């Protein structure tokens, strides 16, 4: 595959922008603005359109990385950004109030893409909140009749995120 478009989505504050920044070989294009609502209590800035970065895997595979806004009011951007995407990374903030409900929102919105492309789930900030554990996430996916790889990931650690992406790309290469 010449180039692969991957999309990072997931709950606000889960680390989509941070993950793309950690991975990208080019200056990341982002559309962060000052948060004016309750979100400002958790983070100062929030993405309202998209993030964009690029990286090359060790085997030379070029990846184009897009990040979506997290809040549901920007869901029109989710559809736009998924156009032509081959893989989806759902990041869930385990220290959020309702991580499994958050996951459900993205599974529901992106179900059509998940069924037709490949996806992985990255659970972030497990160091700050141990529960729910990965087993609970797997059980939750089973209820939804989904089998997706789930990683506990520190999005600030490039190697950590690369490992997750390599798993996703391997799934894509197997599928195509």
């Amino acid at each position: 595959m010449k180039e692969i478009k991957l999309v990072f989505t997931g709950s606000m504050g889960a680390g989509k922008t941070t993950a793309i920044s950690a991975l990208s070989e080019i200056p990341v294009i982002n559309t962060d603005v000052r948060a004016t609502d309750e979100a400002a209590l958790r983070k100062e800035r929030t993405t309202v359109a998209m993030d964009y970065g690029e990286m090359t895997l060790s085997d030379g595979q070029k990846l184009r990385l897009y990040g979506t806004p997290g809040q549901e009011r920007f869901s029109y951007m989710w559809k736009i950004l998924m156009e032509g995407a081959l893989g989806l990374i759902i990041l869930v903030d385990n220290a959020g109030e309702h991580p499994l409900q958050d996951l459900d929102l993205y599974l529901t919105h992106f179900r059509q893409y998940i069924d037709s492309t490949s996806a992985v789930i990255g659970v972030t900030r497990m160091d700050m909140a141990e529960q729910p554990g990965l087993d609970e996430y797997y059980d939750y996916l089973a209820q939804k009749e989904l089998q997706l790889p789930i990683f506990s990931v520190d999005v600030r650690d490039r190697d950590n995120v690369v490992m997750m992406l390599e798993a996703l790309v391997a799934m894509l290469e197997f599928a195509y």
Partner: protein
Amino acid sequence: MLSNLEKVQTTQLLKSLLQNTSEICAAVVTTLDGHLCAKEQRDEYALERLATMGSTLMSLGDTITAELKMGACRNIISENEGGIVAFMHINQDLVLVTLTQQLNALGMLLAHSRRCAAEIAKLLHNT
């Protein structure tokens, strides 16, 4: 973001905009992170969604002009089969979105919208 008094005063300015310019169909003030603050319209538009999309577009405009080192993005114009939509900064946190169904009213739309944006900025600066 805005106090109740500021919302009322801002809505009043939008009302004046629509009263003084019959070609403008709707006007919305939104935060740059997509929350509707004030609105006024003649027809029934989905203004909540317009507010959120306005923040997305304005932010993209800011990102594009920064990338091209062209200074601040003043406004974004969407010219369509059924009318024109203009997006412009009021200040660093707020965006004004206005629309007209008149295809030949771009100059009028921009001129009156800019004046309204300046009035809102002045109002919020003074309160």
